């Protein structure tokens, strides 16, 4: 006898019994499919919801917090920036081009669903080491996919990060972040409202995309031949999404819609239940009214299909004609598929027949939440990386670091992205520590009038969080704030994506709990709220879990984007300084150098004085924002020498840095939070006060650090190591 359908769909026996209780009967096939998705980890956050309650969600600039399609912060002049980050890890491992493309498509929809026009995308990617043909294939596919979708739809990809570690070989990470701009008054909630209002499905036709695993529910007549008809891969169409986006933005501008929601994971079933839950109403949906791409789709398939580029809108009957006219003009399909009711139930009909009837609370709010059972591991669970360092000589170490995949120039990636469309990009990839975008590209430069804008960065951490989930996560948050500070931006809000292994395992539960606590503590100290985010669990397979990988995206306000420093050294004769937090420590523990040397991952990193790091971040932000500094760069992976090399390469000019002869690799390449390399006129450096130490002078065609030196050409050649991956 085959396994019970509910188990095949991922529900436990006790979850199934609970569903029967809520319905006061057994669920039919359609209801079982919908519950299995709504109660899945991905939709219900069963193992993480309680923990996420620790994160701060209040702030002076916050307009929309967690719970909506995207969060939003106020940036002045009645304008808001909406933003969010989401993962698309599992689909990308199956088909990296479409997985990454549809990940971008999904996050774009989340942003315009709240009424904001998408103005930028960033991505955070993690793959196995590049020796593996599979990782090369995933990297190439994901970058092409992100470029394909973002470029085609006219939203610039302005930043991102990519890392290569053996721990991600079987489970790659693709996290996509999007930000959009809107006037406050246009920000829209997804809560369905108005009993008697109509439910309209807009956009692409519905096919069998993403159904895969639910095929056990198909009626008995379908046979094995139909496997191919239930693709697990979703295929994206950016051209369709562009039309849908323009239609939605126009409708929201005119105030035609009562609410709007995008269709993502679990398709119609999750969008409708969430809309109904937020609005405290019920919804009737008639699947026979849904435009289909495939013949003979069953009602359950229509409800759970993950076909892309679709939106769900609620509209008053009197404004339906307006909606239809706008959609026709943009060549977007719009079909009335249901209505808002007062039943507090999600009822699914097929013409006149009721084929499913579920209480909304049961689907959304009553999903059981589980407590984690964390237990710190006695020893490090991750194996040591393979040693690749050939020489201990510092003169050889710097080129080796620059040439390592985690530190090499990302130019071969970002040149595949349009970073310019919409005319807002003031600082492009590899110019500054954060992307800088002008809020009003239509304004012309006027002396004395600042060009207002925003800054955005995305930062994650895997290996260092594996060493110390609490401290590693604190570091990731501080690094993101530091990147914003380097362009003079004050953080307004944060979005996060938590990528972890199986939370039912005690050491993963421990990683997750410690990481969220670290994030909460760091954010409270910085005074930055979480506006929304995403959790991706169960990223593991036979080889064990991925490194615990929290990814954070921060948005900040920039008073005058024209003054935002890049990180390249500029003028010969200017001073170079190291600005460090009081008591800032450096260590080789968990560093890129330690990785290249094949050292075991430690358990524990040096604790961080977060208040002291906050102080230095504010100092650098003030100086950078005032235009006093020529350049500002956060010292992160690869340590001080790597940061100096990056400043030299970005500026195309060398520097002479004093060193007291002690070429201790820890001082040159050790890592730790709270340090910056800045450059500028001597007076500007002096004005920074005691936290800044002048260490050298800009000039020449070499990077000189004490007795060591490298030509700019040597450094550039080393740094070009990723180019062959895209030949």
């Amino acid at each position, binding site marked *: 006898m085959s396994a019970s359908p509910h188990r095949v769909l991922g529900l436990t026996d006790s979850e199934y019994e609970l569903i029967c209780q809520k319905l006061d009967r057994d669920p039919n096939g359609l209801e079982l499919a919908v519950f299995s998705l709504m109660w899945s980890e991905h939709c219900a956050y069963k193992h993480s919801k309680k923990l996420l309650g620790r994160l701060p969600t209040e702030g002076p600039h916050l307009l929309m917090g967690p719970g909506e399609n995207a969060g939003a912060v106020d940036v002045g002049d009645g304008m808001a920036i909406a933003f969010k980050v989401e993962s698309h890890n599992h689909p990308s491992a199956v088909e990296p081009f479409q997985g990454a493309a549809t990940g971008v498509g999904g996050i774009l929809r989340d942003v315009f669903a709240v009424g904001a026009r998408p103005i930028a995308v960033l991505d955070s990617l993690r793959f196995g080491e590049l020796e593996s043909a599979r990782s090369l294939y995933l990297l190439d596919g994901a970058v*092409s996919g992100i*470029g*394909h979708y973002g*470029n*085609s*739809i*006219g939203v610039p990809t302005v930043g991102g990060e990519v890392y290569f570690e053996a721990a991600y070989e079987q489970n790659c990470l693709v996290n996509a972040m999007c930000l959009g701009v809107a006037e406050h008054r246009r920000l829209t909630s997804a809560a369905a409202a108005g009993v008697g209002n109509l439910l309209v499905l807009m956009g692409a036709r519905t096919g069998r995309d993403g159904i895969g695993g639910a095929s056990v529910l198909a009626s008995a007549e379908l046979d094995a031949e139909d496997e191919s008809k239930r693709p697990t891969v979703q295929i994206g*169409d*950016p*051209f369709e999404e*562009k*039309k849908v986006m323009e239609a939605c933005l126009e409708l929201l501008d005119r105030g035609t819609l009562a609410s709007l929601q995008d269709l993502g994971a679990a398709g119609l079933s999750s969008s409708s239940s969430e809309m109904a839950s937020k609005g405290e109403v019920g919804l009737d949906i008639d699947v026979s009214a849904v435009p289909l791409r495939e013949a003979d789709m069953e009602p359950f398939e229509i409800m759970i299909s993950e076909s892309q580029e679709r939106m769900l809108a609620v509209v008053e009957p009197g404004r339906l004609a307006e909606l239809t006219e706008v959609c026709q003009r*943009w*060549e977007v399909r719009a079909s009335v598929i249901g209505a808002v009711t007062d039943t507090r139930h999600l009822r699914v009909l097929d013409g006149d027949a009721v084929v499913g009837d579920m209480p909304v609370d049961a689907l959304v709010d009553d999903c059981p939440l589980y407590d984690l059972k964390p237990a710190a591991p006695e020893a490090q669970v991750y194996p040591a990386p393979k040693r690749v360092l050939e020489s201990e000589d510092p003169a050889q170490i710097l080129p080796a670091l620059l040439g390592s995949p985690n530190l090499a120039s990302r130019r071969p990636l*970002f*040149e*595949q*992205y*349009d*970073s*310019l*469309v*919409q*005319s*807002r*990009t*003031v600082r492009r990839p590899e110019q500054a520590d954060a992307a800088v975008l*002008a809020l009003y*590209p*239509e304004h*012309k*430069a006027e002396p004395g009038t600042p*060009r207002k804008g925003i800054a955005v960065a995305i930062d994650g951490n895997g290996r260092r969080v594996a060493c110390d989930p609490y401290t590693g996560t604190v570091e990731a948050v501080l690094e993101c704030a530091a990147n914003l500070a380097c362009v003079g931006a004050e953080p307004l809000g944060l979005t996060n994506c938590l990528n972890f292994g199986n939370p039912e395992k005690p050491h993963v539960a421990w990683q997750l709990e410690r990481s969220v606590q670290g994030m909460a503590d760091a954010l409270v100290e910085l005074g930055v709220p979480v506006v929304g985010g995403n959790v991706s669990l169960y990223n593991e397979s036979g080889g064990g879990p991925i490194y615990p990988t929290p990814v954070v995206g921060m948005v900040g306000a920039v008073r005058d*984007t*024209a003054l935002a420093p890049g990180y390249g050294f500029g003028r010969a004769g200017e001073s170079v300084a190291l600005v460090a937090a009081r008591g800032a420590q450096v260590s080789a523990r968990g560093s890129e150098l330690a990785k290249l040397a094949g050292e075991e991952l430690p358990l524990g990193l040096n604790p961080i004085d977060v208040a002291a790091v906050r102080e230095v971040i504010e100092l650098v932000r003030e100086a950078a924002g005032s235009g006093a500094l020529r350049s500002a760069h956060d010292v992160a992976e690869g340590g001080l020498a790597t940061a100096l090399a990056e400043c030299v390469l970005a500026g195309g000019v060398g520097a002479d840095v004093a060193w007291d002869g002690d070429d201790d690799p820890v001082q040159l390449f050790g890592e730790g939070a709270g340090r910056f390399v800045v450059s500028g006129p001597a007076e500007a450096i002096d004005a920074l006060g005691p936290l800044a130490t002048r260490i050298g002078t800009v000039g020449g065609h070499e990077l000189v650090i004490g007795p060591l030196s490298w030509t700019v050409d040597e450094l550039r050649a080393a740094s070009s190591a990723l180019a062959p991956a*895209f030949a």
Partner: protein
Amino acid sequence: MRFGVIRFPGSCDETDALLACRRYADAEILWHGDRDLDGVDAVVVPGGFSYGDYLRVGAIARFSPIMEAVTEFAASGGHVLGICNGFQVLCEAGLLPGALLPNAGRRFLCRQVDVEVARADSPFTRAASAGQVLSIPVKHTTGRYHAPAHVLEGLDAHGQILLRYAPGHNPNGSEDDIAGVTNEAGNVMGLMPHPEHAVDALTGSEDGGVIFESLASVAVAA
């Protein structure tokens, strides 16, 4: 003087082109479905992915109603500027010689490049000088300019090549480093680089402005 910037389904850089035009004259968006150019003095066919680049870049956009009006406008001497996807549309429509093929590197490429002005006695470059180097970004997958050898010779001989990529800056394998060409009458120009993304020092260079400046001064006089 008024520019008309066409918006097709899938156009991306039309708003950018509109902003650039507005720095030099009035400008409005023209809808692809209209057969009427609303009396504009010059037409800009912008960059993007009109009709999703389906079948072939520009292949479907060239049949839109607005393009009939553009063809008549060009035939009677009106000035038409095609940028990137716009260049592709004009080639497909037969308003410009040659064709744009996939980049030699096969990938989308977004990069700031130097282009040299070959001649400054054209309506599109009169505000520049011959030999002037302009720093302008390119961002495309299908920008390799190609024409049969005898056509290329003719272009050169008739002075129809207006812009060439500077040595070492050809991003896509275009023949003879061609970045921008005109038709024989000289009133229609296409170029792969995006001058509308080089009009504000805040976001890069201002070198692209000379093309809009040139058109703004010429189309008024016409």
